[in-house]
């Protein structure tokens, strides 16, 4: 491979906690090997150095919450051959998307000590609502092995091998006894995207949805099961709206009815 130029990696941040990009630095055993294969061209959390774009692979953390950021993501897209979102904020809007649920009409005014100093949008939105995204990694935070898999797949020009089944399946694979059946704990496992290896049930608690909704989640059905367990409606609504908002079940209630 002598003389071959290494592909350029850029890591971008929007509204977030920095945890997903930290996952890259948490690859303690692999980090130096990664930098052998790919050039860290832009990653302010780790380096002062800035290599000009265009970038071969851009990892994007965080959600869009300001007008400035809504513009900036377009520049990044134009400057990136391959763009992957990392984590719940970038992929679904994240916990700060809780603001989206508040009815602004209910507020006569939102006042800070000096509101004129602040510029923010009324919503927190996923990157894919603004630009084309080539691949999405879910999780709050993302899973380290999945991040390595995605980078590896990119370097080897193949599709990332990231399962799209539910956390419920991961429990079965792990051999964890169902917490919803045995402990009557409301668990989002049946409708949540895999990726954490069913961590919470292994620690005696229900899944709280770090990886967000899987494809075609049956929200109406699980809400009904929660109600059977004696969970109140207000709590069900909180469970479904924390780190990732799950699709509203109201409109599809009838067809979901079992």
């Amino acid at each position: 491979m002598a003389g071959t130029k290494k592909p350029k990696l850029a890591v971008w941040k929007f509204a977030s906690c920095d945890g997903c990009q930290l996952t890259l630095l948490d690859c303690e055993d692999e980090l130096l090997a990664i930098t052998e294969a790919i050039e860290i061209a832009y990653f302010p959390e780790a380096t002062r150095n800035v290599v000009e774009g265009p970038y071969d692979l851009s990892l994007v953390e965080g959600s869009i919450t300001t007008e400035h950021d809504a513009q900036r993501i377009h520049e990044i897209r134009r400057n990136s051959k391959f763009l992957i979102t990392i984590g719940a904020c970038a992929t679904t809007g994240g916990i700060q998307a809780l603001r989206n649920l508040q009815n602004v009409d209910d507020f006569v005014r939102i006042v800070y000590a000096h509101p004129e100093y602040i510029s923010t949008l009324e919503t927190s939105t996923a990157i894919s609502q603004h630009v084309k995204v080539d691949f999405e990694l879910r999780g709050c935070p993302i899973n380290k092995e999945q991040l390595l898999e995605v980078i590896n797949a990119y370097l080897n020009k193949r599709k990332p091998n990231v399962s799209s089944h539910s956390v419920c399946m991961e429990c079965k694979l792990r051999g964890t006894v169902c917490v919803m059946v045995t402990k009557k704990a409301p668990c989002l496992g049946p409708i949540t995207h895999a990726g954490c290896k069913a961590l919470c049930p292994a620690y005696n608690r229900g899944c709280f949805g770090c990886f967000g909704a899987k494809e075609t989640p049956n929200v109406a059905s699980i809400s009904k099961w929660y109600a059977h367990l004696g969970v109140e409606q207000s709590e069900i609504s909180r469970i479904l709206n924390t780190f990732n908002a799950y699709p509203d079940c109201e409109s599809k209630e009838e067809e979901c009815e079992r």
Partner: protein
Amino acid sequence: MKGKKKTIKVDYLARVEGEGALHIEVQDNKLQDVKLKIFEPPRFFEAFLRGRSYSEAPDITARICGICPVAYQMSAVHAMEQILEVKVEGSLRDLRRLLYCGEWIESHVLHIYMLHAPDFLGYQDAISMAKEYPEEVKRGLRLKKVGNEILKVLGGREIHPINVRVGGFYKVPTKRELEPLAEELKWARDAALQTVEWAAQLPIPDFQQNYEFVALRHKDEYPFNEGRLVSSQGLDIDIAHFNDHFVEQHVAYSNALHCIHKERGAYLVGPLARYSLNFATLPQEIQQVALQNNLQKTCCNPFQSIIVRGIEVLYACEEALRIISEYEPPQPMMDFKVQAGVGHGCTEAPRGICYHRYEIDDEGMIRDARIVPPTSQNQKMIEEDLRHFVAQYIDLPEKELTWRCEQAVRNYDPCISCATHFLKLHIKRS
């Protein structure tokens, strides 16, 4: 005639957590203005915590910071436990200290080796530093991993652990599950000692500040979770009185509130403050290590924070080993009844005190939340440091002075993501 004007601008501070910029203006070799600008967008945690359950606070507030989630979880559970009149003691309390040890190791080592050391040695980052310092960088990575392993075993995962709950844990580890950590921690203790020695011989700029240090102080242990809030100017209060002495200000150029002492203004939290106010509670061998490695009992040079972090990593390794060797698995959680009230939690995040205050109703729903992270407390002091630093080193070539100023900011290991999420959202209803 107009004099010579010089502006030091760093549009995007590197090797800090979050988005910040630096703006310094010098006219005729005299400093005019210093601003640490935080443009990280606000996320309004205090607003959306309202109406959530007390039991959700540890998992929700963890998301404020991916680097120090344990600090938020700990401050949140302590505040709630104060309201619910639960006392977490014995080995359950020890497990919480162990979790904090993991976070201190992981966060401090990340800063020492990957964010701070490259400044002293003139590298852009740890990756390029690794070419000439491979052993040191590898040691740093392995040491950081030891901290992360503690978080993984006890918390479920490194970032945003899932095992902490009000009243205790969801699941406690067996003795056997903790044993492999002890093996690696014995190596880590030696590596931490080497880290202190290595940090002590770095070229550290000559610079002293007259700080008011603020930290927790506990009568017989180096503080993590509990203690009175004390300062080097004689403050000695229960954490419940935080608001009587400190106030947050909103300035135009920053999305993070500046927290100051009501009478005395800027103050410092974090490793320097903790160390200087709690030297006496460090084990004697660690005190000796400190004194043999260019530290005094009080440390007023912020550039030496890299050595102090090393001392705290060493302490965290020792403390983790003690906890593991004495460990007997407890019941995972204490019983309590939900009741209304107001509670305060203040714990020592790697970057300094993290203060939470919650008001909950009789169903356990949060009515009001207030969170003061360490970096919003240090912001004002960072600016004061820069003011004095630039005055002292004004003759340095511009490029070097800029880099040195960045380094002076990085002394604080500022976590801008944390600091920014606390703009108060006041909602006025008609």
